[in-house]
């Protein structure tokens, strides 16, 4: 079953076509890899799905609904969480406070109530434990290492209980131990039914983790299939080597 689908999306910045009639689909419960040379439009595609950019043409469908050009908060509330290539956490808040920011409650009582003694705190601590940075809960988030920031961003996405998680280069600039750790967390969550769409340049990471891989080049999809198939696809090789 397809849970997330982009149909014929186009997006231009000035004269540059970041997305050019691009269509991809993501199967529910699977881990899908999204690869392609630099500038092939992967991050733009993420931005379009999560509402950070508006498409010039095309549609985005999620779980039977149209979410084309919905605002980021709506997309997030509907169950699509994302991380950023250069993590976007709240550097001057503590790690635990970061977790509470993304667990929003909009009732007046929820807003005016304290957050430190609620169930939410319990849940936040569990998730920090899950990604492995619970010991840093009182640290200022801006002081974390790059990899720890990535884990924090991952954790505060989880607190909203998303159905689909989009990860933008989770393994980029992170040491091998951390990569393995991250990989096990992703697999763990996937077992519980969470769908993943992952942009990554680390091929080993993608090949080990993903059920299917989609390849983008010049703003559009050029190949799709199992990791093994994609690896042998001549169009893919050309895209990577040809530039």
């Amino acid at each position, binding site marked *: 079953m397809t849970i997330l689908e982009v149909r014929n999306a186009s997006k231009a910045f000035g004269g540059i076509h970041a997305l050019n009639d691009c269509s991809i689909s993501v199967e529910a419960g699977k881990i899908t890899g999204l690869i392609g040379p630099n500038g092939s439009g992967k991050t733009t595609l993420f*931005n379009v799905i999560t509402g*950070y*950019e508006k498409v010039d043409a095309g549609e985005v469908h999620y779980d039977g609904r149209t979410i084309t050009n919905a605002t980021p908060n709506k997309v997030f509330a509907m169950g699509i969480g994302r991380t*950023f*290539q*250069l993590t*976007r956490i709240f550097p001057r808040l503590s790690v635990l406070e970061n977790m509470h920011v993304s667990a929003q409650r909009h009732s007046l009582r929820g807003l005016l109530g304290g957050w430190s003694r609620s169930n939410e705190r319990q849940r936040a601590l569990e998730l920090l434990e899950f990604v492995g940075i619970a010991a840093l809960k009182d640290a200022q988030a801006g002081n974390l290492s790059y990899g720890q920031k990535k884990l924090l961003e991952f954790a505060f996405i989880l607190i909203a209980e998303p159905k689909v998680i989009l990860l933008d280069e989770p393994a980029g600039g992170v040491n091998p131990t951390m990569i393995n750790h991250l990989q096990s967390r992703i697999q763990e969550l996937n077992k519980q039914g969470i769908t993943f769409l992952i942009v990554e340049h680390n091929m080993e990471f993608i090949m080990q983790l993903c059920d299917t891989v989609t390849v983008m080049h010049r703003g559009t999809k050029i190949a799709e299939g199992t990791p093994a198939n994609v690896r042998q696809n001549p169009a893919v090789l050309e895209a990577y080597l040809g530039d």
Partner: protein
Amino acid sequence: MELIIDAIITGILTGGVYALMASGLTLVFGVMEIINIAQGAFVILGAYLSYALAQHFHIDLFLGLLITMPVMFVLGVLIQVLFIRPLKRDRTMLSILVTFAVALIIEGVLTILFTANIVTLKAPYITQSFRIGNFYLSYIYVYGFLLSVVLLAGLYLLLYRTKFGQSVRASMLNRTAAQLIGIDVERVSALTFGIGVALTAAGGMAFGATTAFNPGSSYDLISRLLTIIVLGGMGSLSGALIASLGMLIIENVTAVVWSPTWSSTVFFVLLVVILILRPQGLLGKLEGRKQ
């Protein structure tokens, strides 16, 4: 009808002088991302310098600029180096406080030296006027406008025809990138600040020649200058130019058709209207962050 045309002409002529004062402010913002609250005080200081030279040494107002502009340039560079460069964090906010402190000090010094009494600049061409068709024009308005045109043209040449200008524009576009390609951004900032302040020496003389002033006049000025650079889009020189002319024309016309009391209000109401329609100003870019 003739009154309105007269008001439009006055608006254009004084608008040119405001453009000169605002260009320094918007240029400094563009390069350093700081808001120089002292710009109004610098204008008044410039006016008093011209006043002092004329009173004590009988130096003509326009000739005196050859002295006051370099002096104000050096003052600007010194202020940037001593007070603004040391600010490492929260630079925007702290620079506002620092430049406000500078404005207070300037106001204090001027009050001690010249008292709080209102003064005017005196020269034959300030009181004399000439006639075109049915309109009488004061020489000083025309001279002030021409001075602004010459200086703004000079500023344009400096920015677009010299190596230094290239560095300034690069720093305005992207400070970090400019640093990476070997531009000494701090040096460019100091010189830009100096230029911005030097322009107020000329702007101050032209302002003082058409308006009576005292050390406290800077508040009214800075509020207008800030409005102009927001309207034009912060950091946009051509925006500041258009906004200055537009605002001063509208203000002068309002004074004629409605009442002088409310002319400044229209000035600010227009700001509100434009911000509702176009938050980034006429020629500005939106300030925000995307990844």
